[in-house]
């Protein structure tokens, strides 16, 4: 009889069980984050090691005239996406729950369609939307608009329109995540509340305002942060759609970081940007913890 065998399940020492996970977290997350911070204060390039402490990279990145523009684009891209993704996700989740309650056919098929867009690889997403936004007269959307006597629209060559196009492509792919979160949250609400509301002859809007929205507030708060960070980290679909152009019109922070490290081979500068990306992401994540703790 070993001591292990005498302990009932539900008790014991967690440490041995946690070793693999902790080792992975340390090797692939904690140490790299520290290392990238160290590199940010060095003069390393992708092919040459750091020769010492330096703030040259930090200063050159912070004074780079491109940075304010990139941060502005990132802010707009993230803010608009977060608003649209959540409105769309919430609307779809509530409509599907309603449809399921009324036993309307087609709800599962619709949910499948939204989820199918979610699993499309980011690169393929950019390429597919690139074909749809093709500005030639035979391009998909422009030839459709021509039927309605509209357009053509400079989907990708106009700086402002290009950002709108990038948002559309991201919304197409990203809505499913918010839909799942809100669907789960809505299903978690006690149906009795809705029965009471119905007895009180509360209309759909009143029910939404007084029951659904308050009880989903925490899910919405947490989801806002998750979606912001996901959007902040998105760059492969933009890379494939516009490559950051025209000019820098759609170059968000993550794409700028990618270009700095892997195209300009400026490792130290890229590390500064990576640290910035990390800091913004973590700031938002700490916000989750705070929002989650607020209302238990």
């Amino acid at each position, binding site marked *: *009889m070993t001591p*292990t*065998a005498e302990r009932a*399940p539900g*008790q*014991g*020492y*967690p440490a041995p069980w*946690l*070793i*693999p*996970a902790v080792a*992975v*977290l340390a*090797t*692939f997350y904690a140490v*790299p*984050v520290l*290392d*990238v911070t160290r*590199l940010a204060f060095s003069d390393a390039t*992708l092919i040459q090691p750091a020769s010492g402490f330096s703030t040259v990279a930090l200063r050159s990145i912070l004074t780079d005239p491109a940075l304010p523009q990139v941060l502005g684009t990132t802010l707009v891209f993230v803010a608009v996406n977060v608003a649209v993704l959540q409105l769309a996700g919430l609307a779809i989740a509530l*409509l599907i729950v309603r449809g399921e309650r*009324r036993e*309307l056919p087609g709800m599962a098929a*619709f949910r499948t*369609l*939204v*989820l*199918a867009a979610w*699993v*499309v*690889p*980011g*690169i*393929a997403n950019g*390429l*597919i*939307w*690139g*074909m749809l936004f*093709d500005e030639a*007269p*035979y391009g*998909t959307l422009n*030839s459709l608009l021509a039927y309605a006597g509209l357009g053509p629209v400079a989907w990708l060559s106009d700086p402002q329109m290009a950002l709108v196009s990038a948002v559309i492509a991201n919304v*197409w792919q990203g809505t499913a995540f918010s839909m799942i979160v809100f*669907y*789960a949250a809505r*299903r978690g609400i006690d149906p009795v509340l809705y029965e009471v509301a119905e007895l009180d002859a509360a209309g759909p809007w009143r029910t939404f305002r007084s029951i659904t929205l308050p009880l989903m507030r925490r899910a919405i708060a947490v989801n806002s942060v998750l979606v912001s960070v996901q959007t902040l*980290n998105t*760059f492969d679909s933009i*890379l494939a759609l516009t490559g950051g152009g025209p000019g820098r019109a759609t170059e968000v922070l993550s794409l700028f970081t990618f270009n700095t*490290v892997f195209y300009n081979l400026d490792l130290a500068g890229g590390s500064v940007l*990576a640290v910035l*990306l*990390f800091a913004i992401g*973590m700031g938002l*994540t700490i916000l*989750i913890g705070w929002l989650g703790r607020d209302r238990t």
Partner: protein
Amino acid sequence: MSARWGDVATYAVLAVLAVFFAVPFAWLVSLAVRTPAEIYLGAARFIPETPTLDNFRTILSDPAFLIYLWNGLKLSALGGALAVVLAIPAAYACARVPFRGRQVVLVGLLAVQMISPLVILVPLYRWMNALDLLNRDVSVIAVYGALGMPLAVWLLKVAFDAIPIELEEAASIDGASRPVILMRIVLPLARSGIASAFILAMVMNWSQFLIPFILLERDGDWPISVAIFNFAGSVSASTTQLLAAACLVAVMPAVLVFILLQRMIVSALIGGAVKG
């Protein structure tokens, strides 16, 4: 009566949204079965007069393309399996071993998911280079394992929580040790949860672009996600139909797996979302 109007409104809104979500897929299929000449006809040929599978034939008869698909499958599957294997002990501890700091571990796992792979890839590239692991599948698989592990822990914890603890208590009284209980009772009972976690990790790996793009430099090692990006750089308007066919081939495996196993995966995700 008002409920009927509500149904009509539900369908009306969902129909508009369905068009938005369906058009890119429909158009991709439409472009992929066109002849080069029909590409120039735009929306007028949404349904081509003579749909052709030639584009798929061209793509799939290229041995390099089959290698890209195989590479994608191999890297995704091994990376997903690694993520699940790494996640099982921690998920079991979080489900069954009460300890202080359990919540910290779970929240910590959620927090590292917020870190962009871009941030950690810079040092990882240098280490892999120093260890001479660049251009080796094992480097990509290791990173996939690390990236997939946190979500797998969450999904597996939910799956383990659902198993009646009495079964484990009975086994424990019979003298079974913890690892034996895990192997003989918990894992077999949690197989649908394990399968969901594995498939989800695999689908995410299939979509990964950054990791293989940076860590694998040789054309022949690339998975499909990197290959189509490279291919897109070389196409012109006259080969749009080939790019569409290539995209479709790259997208279909993930979409099909997801549709077929949707019920299982979505319920696992919803379970995770409720707990989270």
